[in-house]
């Protein structure tokens, strides 16, 4: 059975002015459907870069990336944006909610790119908020929510369009221990009970314990893996 995400000999070089920095060196990796993968490593090891490439936020300098059998390293611009809208749910360290919208409207944003009518968008958002136990906060704006609640809203936004995979960049990096545990437990539930494939970048070994697999990156190379 082929992997959901296939990464083959991927390199990424950033050019800043006259300087070129190779952040990833020939990384190859398979991620199976239903995996909950934790990517760990020191700062500057290339974790977020790899995550951005898997999520279609950036393109590799060389090598190939396929998700669900589709090469995404060859996609550009609008095609890549449309692919992201359908296949990837993003969860960021700082939640990245739109501050002027209520929780419900924030969750609805990805559905604006679909043909769903307003009533259906609202219904889907209500279900997603219910899943993250925030139905009672639907009409609250991000500033009126705690960090943990904001991250749960972000998770609801990430799952609302039922993406192929969830991509999480330090999802607990800005949370206290209790809120972090709640968010990680929620991700576990999404993985275990709803079959979501999750790729999570984290510095926190305790967070990584919630994953089914952990990979370590150092200086742009995968150095160790653990089940």
């Amino acid at each position: 059975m082929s992997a959901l995400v296939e990464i083959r000999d991927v390199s990424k070089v950033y050019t800043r002015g006259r300087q070129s920095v190779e952040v990833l060196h020939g990384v190859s990796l398979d991620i199976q459907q239903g995996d909950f993968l934790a990517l760990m490593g020191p700062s500057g090891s290339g974790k977020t870069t790899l995550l951005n490439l898997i999520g279609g936020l950036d393109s590799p300098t060389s090598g190939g990336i396929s998700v669900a059998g589709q090469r995404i390293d060859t996609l550009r611009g609008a095609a890549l944006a449309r692919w992201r809208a359908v296949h990837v749910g993003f969860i960021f360290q700082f939640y990245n909610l739109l501050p002027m919208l209520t929780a419900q409207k924030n969750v609805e944003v990805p559905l604006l790119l679909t043909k769903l009518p307003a009533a259906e968008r609202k219904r889907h958002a209500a279900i997603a908020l219910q899943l993250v136990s925030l139905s009672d906060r639907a009409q609250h704006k991000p500033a009126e929510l705690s960090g943990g609640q904001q991250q749960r809203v972000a998770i609801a936004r990430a799952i609302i369009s039922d993406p192929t995979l969830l991509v999480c960049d330090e999802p607990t990096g800005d949370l206290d221990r209790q809120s972090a545990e709640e968010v990680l437990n929620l991700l576990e539930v999404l993985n275990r009970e709803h079959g979501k494939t999750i790729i999570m970048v984290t510095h926190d070994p305790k967070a990584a314990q919630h994953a089914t697999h952990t990979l370590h990156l150092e200086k742009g190379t995968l150095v160790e893996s653990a089940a």
Partner: protein
Amino acid sequence: MKYLHLVWAALMRRKTRTVLTILSVLAAFLLFGLLDGVRAAFNAGGTIAGVDRLVVASRFSIIQPLPESLIAQVQSVPGVRRVTWGNWFGGYYQEPKNQLIMFAVAANYFDIYDDYGVTASMRAAFDRSRTGVLVGATIARRFGLKVGDKFPVMGAIYPDKATGEASWQFDVAGIFETPSSKMRAHEQEILMHWKYLDEASAYGSGTVGWLIVQVADPAQSAVVAQRIDDLTKNSDHETKTQTEKAFNLSFAKQIGDIGLIVGAIIGAVFFTLLLLTGNTMAQAVRERIPELATLKTLGFTDRSVLGLVFFESVLLVVIGGVLGLALSSTLIPAVSAASGGMLELPPIGVRTWLIGFALMLAVGAIVGVLPALRAMRLRIVDALAGR
């Protein structure tokens, strides 16, 4: 329309700034509405057809005098009922800052102009005194003048033949109040005898500034006007017969090309508006780069992000512009009333609304284009990393 709440949310992110920007746009379009009214008022002389009073003045310039002999010629034109005439007599009272609107008028002037509020006794007093003047109530109040007062005026054009000096001595024969508010502007006028000017002036005798013709049948006024102008064709004093409104406006136009002045003011206002609103939009997008990057992350294409910012810019200007034009619509009747009939601004019509709307779209597009392009071009990875 499904993106409207996103655009509105972006506008409401900094409420104070948005409200202040909308107020700036409102002020600009309020001025545009009022000044366009002024421009239209100065360009609309009205049609001759249907009016019962016409003004005959030099074709070349209103300061070019006409020969007195023309009066009898015009009186003999078929369709002309009565003719009177007047002349400009500018000057000031006591100090140069007290400039006067002063006309020398024929003895039968009030036979045609019976709407000045000049009573029979007032007129009789005026007729009895060679140096008598009729003073509008506004001017009388301003200078504290009473009937019987001496009224010295330093003439702007004509020196007194007897003294050789520009100072003239008048007697206040009456103070008139116009019965209609539409005529209120005339209460700023002072009327003297044309005969006195003609006899006492060191030069310019035997000439008149303009003739006022009362036609027998208003339906024939266009024909009568043509007949009058035909009298002087190819002479050195060709005339132009027009409506009073057009004549009055040509007086005001002496200060310059009103259209150009109005255009220059509007241009300056809109240039300032472009800088102001452009700066606001640039700032608004700069502050929202992480949010715009998030939208792109979620699958919004570069073009849709460009469209959102562009729409936001246009919406901002359209809100302020519509409010400004609506406010000027409301204010125009008040401005017209306050001018006492001096300036009758036409109501804002479809044409002005269309031009205004086109301006709103143009300003919105111009100020939105650079921020929208910036939003379109931003790279998600850099924007999320704060680079």
